[in-house]
Structure formats: structure tokens, C-alpha cells
């Protein structure tokens, strides 16, 4: 299933890019992330407790950042599995200047399996967008904090 979306950051593009690529920032921004270990260049294995409404599950998965063209675009390849089911997907992410901020656009192709797929297909797009928003909001927060710390120094 195809899920497209966008997000606006009130931060310059170079800073957004840095934090979208930084393992420390990713670890903090991935919703419910409990483990995050590098297993290959630009590739991490992770565990996360994810909850949307009454549905909760612990997932383990892998994230890889590919086709990186600094500050312009990259591809995020991810897969996850847990008791309620699993899924995998690829998202093409593009960044552009937008006034003083940054405009991010993603186009994802996602496949899900298991109970999540059987009952969740109705909610898949909304859930994916909700988690993407949580992730980007957290990236923005992490990046802003880092900038403030830098400025205070």
C-alpha cells in the first residue's frame, strides 16, 4: 500500500538532514524505541514498543538508509515483526528549503502481514501517518535541543 505525506520543520535543511541521519537522533525519535544497534554501515537493528490506541505490541526490526544524496534525498528501508504481525516498506524522502524552514516529502510503499494486516488495513494509512508525524516531531525536538545547547555554549 502506498502512503504519501509531508512535514514542515521550522529548522534549516542542513540541520534536519544531520538529525535524520544521526543514529543518536534516530534512536530518540523512533516511537517507543528501546534498542538501536548498528549492524552494518547505515543499517541498524532495533526494538520498539509501539502503541496506537488499544493496540500495543513489541516489534523488532531493521532500518537502513540508502541512496543518500546529502541534504536532498534518501531512501529509508525498514522491516519489523512482532506478535501482532509484521511489515516491511521503503520510503523515498525528499527535503527542500521552505522559507526559513524545511519541507519534507515522503512516498512510502508498505506491506503488512499477520493480524495487523487482517484487521488493520482500514487503519494502516492513518497509523503510518500518525507514527511518521510523531517521528518527525521528535526529530525536530531533538534537533532544536541540540541547537540550543550549542548556542548556550
Amino acid at each position, binding site marked *: 500500500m502506498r502512503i504519501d505525506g509531508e512535514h514542515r520543520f521550522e529548522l534549516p535543511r542542513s540541520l534536519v538532514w544531520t538529525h535524520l541521519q544521526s543514529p543518536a537522533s534516530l534512536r530518540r525519535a523512533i516511537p517507543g524505541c528501546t534498542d538501536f544497534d548498528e549492524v552494518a554501515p547505515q543499517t541498524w537493528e532495533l526494538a520498539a514498543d509501539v502503541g*496506537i*490506541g488499544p493496540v500495543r*505490541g513489541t516489534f523488532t526490526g531493521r532500518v537502513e538508509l540508502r541512496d543518500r544524496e546529502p541534504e536532498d534525498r534518501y531512501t529509508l528501508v525498514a522491516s519489523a515483526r512482532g*506478535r501482532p504481525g509484521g511489515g516491511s516498506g521503503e520510503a523515498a524522502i525528499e527535503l527542500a528549503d521552505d522559507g526559513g524552514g524545511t519541507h519534507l516529502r515522503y512516498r512510502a510503499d508498505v506491506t503488512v502481514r499477520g493480524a495487523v494486516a487482517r*484487521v488493520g*488495513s*482500514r487503519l494502516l494509512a492513518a497509523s503510518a501517518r500518525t507514527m511518521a508525524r510523531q517521528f518527525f516531531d521528535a526529530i525536530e525536538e531533538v534537533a532544536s535541543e541540540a541547537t540550543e545547547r550549542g548556542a548556550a555554549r
Partner: protein
Amino acid sequence: MIPSAFEYRRAGSVDEAIALKREAGSAARFIAGGHSLIPLMKLRLSEPSVLIDIGRVPGLSGVSEDGGRISIGALTTHADLESDPLLLAVAPIVAEAAGEIGDQQVRNRGTIGGSLAHADPAADLPAVVVALDAAIHIAGADGPRAVAASDFFRGLFEVDLGEDELITAVSFDRPSRAAYAKLRHPASHFAIVGVAAALTVEEGVCTGARVAVTGASTHARRLSAVEEALTGSRLDDDSIAQASAAASELGDVNADLAGSEEYRRAMTRAFTGRAIAAAASR
């Protein structure tokens, strides 16, 4: 199809329910009709360790009116709403919307409080209470409070309700002209889109409008551009068509097997028109 093990507690009062929830913590869930929660538990998508049954708490069900303000207890079932003589007389939108939920078995068990607290993005009653500018009455350890329906729904399954809080009632002023129009999913009967419209009309001119949509995005929300376009209009075919076209300004729209984004946007416009026309003719 067998849920994982859980403890069962039955609360005899609102205060006892809140105390039990505080004691059991975040792994506990309240249950009333159970027709949203139990299917998720059977698939083990939801695995609460404790269920606190509030289904028999006295004083939380029924419909009443006091000085033009209608109050519906949280445990009132959809079947009760559907056939309630007071609602049918003064707020038929609520009875109609309740009658379109799921099937008869779901309506016999499911409650208005459960539907609002669960906040499925395609549930019918959230759009209705937002359009009626209802207050959601909530009980918690710090005492009772009320929140406007349009502030209550915040996101996907996300509502303004604390861990130890529960909905006790919903109240709203007697609407003058209100109607609900729904495109229902053929199997689940959830709303592919559902639109609730409540209008105030004086001498043929619309002086106030609240229009809310469900099924289209993460949660029930107002269509403010539609409301603005309606206000001051004469509610003829042209002005209704023009106002409905403004429903396209929805942000991110859901897509699934039942309908693509584009289809949902088109259906939101179409059912916005139907709900407004039905409300105007009341």
C-alpha cells in the same frame, strides 16, 4: 480467537471504577459493551491484564432533558439511542446515527461512552457529538470535568481522557436542524465517510452551522470552510453545492481497500451535501 489471560473486576460505582483503575495501572482497561475491545483482544492485538467492568454501574444510562439541554448517560446502548422517544422527537440525528452503527448485536451491546472513548477513526457518534457541540462529561480522581467534543478528539484513537478517567455522560442543547449522512462499508458498516450537520436557520438564512466528518481522516473533525461557506447562505441547491465543495480542504485523508484518498475526498463532498440538505429540510 482466544484472548490472553486477564483478571476481571466489576465496579459497583464510578468511584469504585476509578479506584480499581488506579490500583491496576496502565495495563488495565475499562469495559462496558466490549464491542470494540473484545474483537481486538480475541486477535491479541490488545492484551489488557485487567478488565474493569463498568457495565452495571447504576445511573449511567438513559436519555433525559432539562431546560433544553439533552443528556445521554455513557452506558446508553446504540439500540437504546435508536429507539429513544425523546431523541426521536427532539434530536433525531442521534437516533439515526446510532441506528446505522454495525449490526443489531453490536447495537444491543455497544455504548455511546465506549464508542467515544475508543475513538475509532470511522465511528459514527464522534462526528455527531462534534456537530452538536456536545460536552463530554468525565469523572476522575480529581473530580468531574467536561470537555467540548471538538477538543476531545485529538488524533488516531487519541482522546482527552486520562488513564484514571471515564466518560459518564454527553450533553448538548436541543438542535434545531441536524442530520447525519453516511456512506457505510458494506461488510463492517463503519463509515467510509460520515458527515453530521447542525444548522441554525432564521427567516430562510443560515445563521450558524457546525459540520463534522468521520471516516475521512485520523479522527472526527469539523469542516470549518464548509461552515463558513454556509453561514449567511439561503441553503438552496447552489449554496449547498458550493459549501460542500469546500469539504475538499481536508488535510491527509485515509485510504484503504474501501476507497482511495481521491474517492474519500469526493465522497466527503457528496455526503456533506446530503447531510446539509437533510438538515435544512428538517
